[in-house]
């Protein structure tokens, strides 16, 4: 029996089933301790990589590090920038929808997934989406898998669009006295021609830091960096601006976020001041131009309370929570209908 058939059999025979890859997001698994574990270890590695097609297909259990290494050999990368580049599997990255800072340039997981092979809650193995960079046939269930937490279907194989990577980077740090001033700087940048690879906002010693990364050709970067710095200083003056020498170290959004609990919150930059005022004790970083919050703390109640108050939902990645979703409950009639079709007995948890 092949690995996919084994998963199908397991689903058919079990009452509850749960997928766990490398366990880089422990909070996603606590609620399912009693469910039969799906073993993805046999579904590891790249299946098909066509650099000239900008597509790669890998088993869901493949580590994002292996995929990134294969791509790097051809000067390509996953533009959604997987969040746990050293530990995560690609399946877990899709299921939890976790992109890193470089997502700012071209888009997130949903923008690069092309298709998948899955096993649903009825034990059926089938394909969703396509394998070419453009496809409009049938319902796009592959996008639906993004953020689905393995509760609708178990991914066994995934196909992505990939892009050529840029050869060089430069990063700048702008310091602002207030959150408001830093947000104004984001708004100014948003209405200009700068094409940034990443733009993250985080509290600093005397206020707030805005980190910006530019990627491109060696010969054009100095000019672009200079003109970006000048433009920003003119449009939204910062207290200080400096280029960061060891720039690669800036771009792990989770570095420097200690705490027993870690969660992801999706929001718009305009919602940041209200949220930030309520979670002042937590460590936090607002990624993707302020469209995403990474919050870490030993006190999850404070975070949960803040999210509820603002009508936001969060996904806990770390910490001992009975369920990973906190804040406003996530419940949607369209998602329920899909569940009804793919997993009517609620086997996948």
């Amino acid at each position, binding site marked *: 029996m092949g690995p996919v058939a084994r998963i199908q059999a397991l689903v058919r025979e079990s009452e509850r089933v749960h997928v766990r890859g490398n366990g880089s997001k422990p909070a996603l698994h606590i609620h399912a301790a009693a469910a039969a574990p799906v073993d993805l270890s046999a579904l590891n590695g790249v299946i098909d990589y066509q650099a000239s097609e900008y597509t790669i297909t890998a088993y869901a259990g493949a580590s994002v590090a292996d995929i990134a290494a294969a791509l790097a050999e051809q000067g390509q990368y996953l533009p959604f920038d997987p969040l746990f580049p050293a530990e995560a599997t690609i399946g877990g990255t899709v299921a939890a929808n976790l992109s890193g800072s470089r997502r700012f340039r071209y888009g997130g997981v949903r923008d690069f997934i092309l298709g998948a092979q899955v096993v649903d809650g009825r034990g059926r193995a089938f394909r969703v989406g396509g394998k070419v960079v453009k496809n409009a046939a*049938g319902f796009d269930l592959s996008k639906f898998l993004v953020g689905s937490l393995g509760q609708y279907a178990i991914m066994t194989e995934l196909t992505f669009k990939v892009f050529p990577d840029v050869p060089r980077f430069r990063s700048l740090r702008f310091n602002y006295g207030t959150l408001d001033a830093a947000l104004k700087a984001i708004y100014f940048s948003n209405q200009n021609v700068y094409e940034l690879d990443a733009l993250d906002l985080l509290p600093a010693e005397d206020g707030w830091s805005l980190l910006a990364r530019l990627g491109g050709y060696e010969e054009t970067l100095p000019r672009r960096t200079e003109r970006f710095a000048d433009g920003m200083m003119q449009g939204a003056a910062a207290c200080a601006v400096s280029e960061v020498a060891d720039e690669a170290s800036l771009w792990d959004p989770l570095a420097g976020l200690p705490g027993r609990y870690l969660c992801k919150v999706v929001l718009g930059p305009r919602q940041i001041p209200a949220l930030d005022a309520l979670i002042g004790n937590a460590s936090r970083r607002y990624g993707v131009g302020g469209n995403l919050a990474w919050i870490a703390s030993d006190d999850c109640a404070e975070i949960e309370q803040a999210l509820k108050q603002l009508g936001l939902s969060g996904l806990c990645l770390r910490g001992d929570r009975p369920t990973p979703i906190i804040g406003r409950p996530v419940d949607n*009639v369209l998602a329920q209908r899909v569940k009804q079709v793919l997993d009517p007995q609620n086997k996948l948890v």
Partner: protein
Amino acid sequence: MMNSAFFTALEKICPAERILTRDAQLLPYESDALTAFHLKPGAVVLPESEAEIIDTVRLCHEMAVPFVARGSGTSLSGGSLPIPDGLVIALNRLNRIKKLDPEQRIAVVEPGVVNLHITQAAAPYGLYYAPDPSSQSICTIGGNIAFNSGGAHCLKYGMTSNHVLGMKVVLADGALTQFGCESVEGVGIGPDLVGLFVGSEGLFGIALEITLRLMPQPELYRTVLAAYDDLGRAGDAVSMVVASGLLPGAMEIMDRLAIKAAEASVAAGYPDAEALLIVELEGEAPQVQAEFEQLRGIIEDSGAFELRVANSEEERDRIWKGRKGAFSAVGRLSPDYIVQDGVVPRSRLGEALLAIGALKRQYGLDVANVFHAGDGNLHPLILYDGREPGALERAEELAGEILALCVSLGGSITGEHGIGMEKREYLPAMFSEEEIDIMQALRRAIDPKEIANRGKMFPGGEAPALKQQGMHPLEKQGIISRE
């Protein structure tokens, strides 16, 4: 059923003058941009508010009346073909841009807003709405969502799906729901429902309010037009560009016949060639300048016999105008034609074009090729004369063979036009019986009475016979004539 009880109830939702039932009002809604199919709807309703749409859908569900939501009727797959004894819900009057937030790069719009109007509204803030189907001057966002419309610039920034962040929808059974959010991240916590809804071809329900992502207008475009005396060589040039690590905003190829049509239509001044390749770089000026030097070298090595660079916005517009009007311009070369839409892996483009060449000789029909080479999306235009008995059927058969070819090369039967009416019978070429069953089950879970855009996407069901439009009567009378 559309009985008098239905109309009485409908008139309570919408005033009678916005319910069209006379022949002169219904006939113009008979078909969209795929005129091989036309069916007169039972009625057309013109809602002017979200509440009217919701109530109308709920009424249709209650009385099991099938409905088709319609924007500007530019579908090339018959996606908005009406249903006889069904209702057309024409969304053109819901055309407000409800919110434009350039600081967050977001727009919130109603479904009847025209694609290009969003870009026009965002332009003063240095932003634009990226997806640019050829019909962008008139097609609506609602239709773009139903069919996940693409365009020439999908390679870098994706299709409609990649630019919709959130929406409020009424499902076919009347349930009202919202998903996604006003964040560039789009998907909140939980599965990507926006991604599922976009491209569902109107089978799930109607989008009432849509949050879109805006992008910064590129500071600089560098548009290059290269002429080749061989179609294959143009295809090879695309592979060379890709291999170089460049990521152009668009790469388009037109063959001789398509060039001829475009010339006849807009006199773009294209060179006389077997194939034209348009490559467009876009982005921050210093970076684009550097990329352009690299691109020039690649094109020069690729065997192009002529290379033109657009030096002004006007010249760029002219290059694109010929390309964007190419479909309709084929109307100047042939009384009738079918636009096809298939995808092949980019590396197999050459192979696909050779095979299409062989097929057209076999069928004795002309085929013009216009395609988004960057993502392997072919648009063969099959020319035929509908006045000739059997010609339409032969053209349809050839179209089918081209689709089978795309699938056999590992591609797709549609890149951006959708399945609609036209390609229902080809769905099994891409998906197994079980996969289609699952999609059907999903559809029924959302729309148990199968009232939303009934007859589209899935094979089977009563297909309307292909009909020939024929000459305009004034043409027959000799009052007007063709060149």
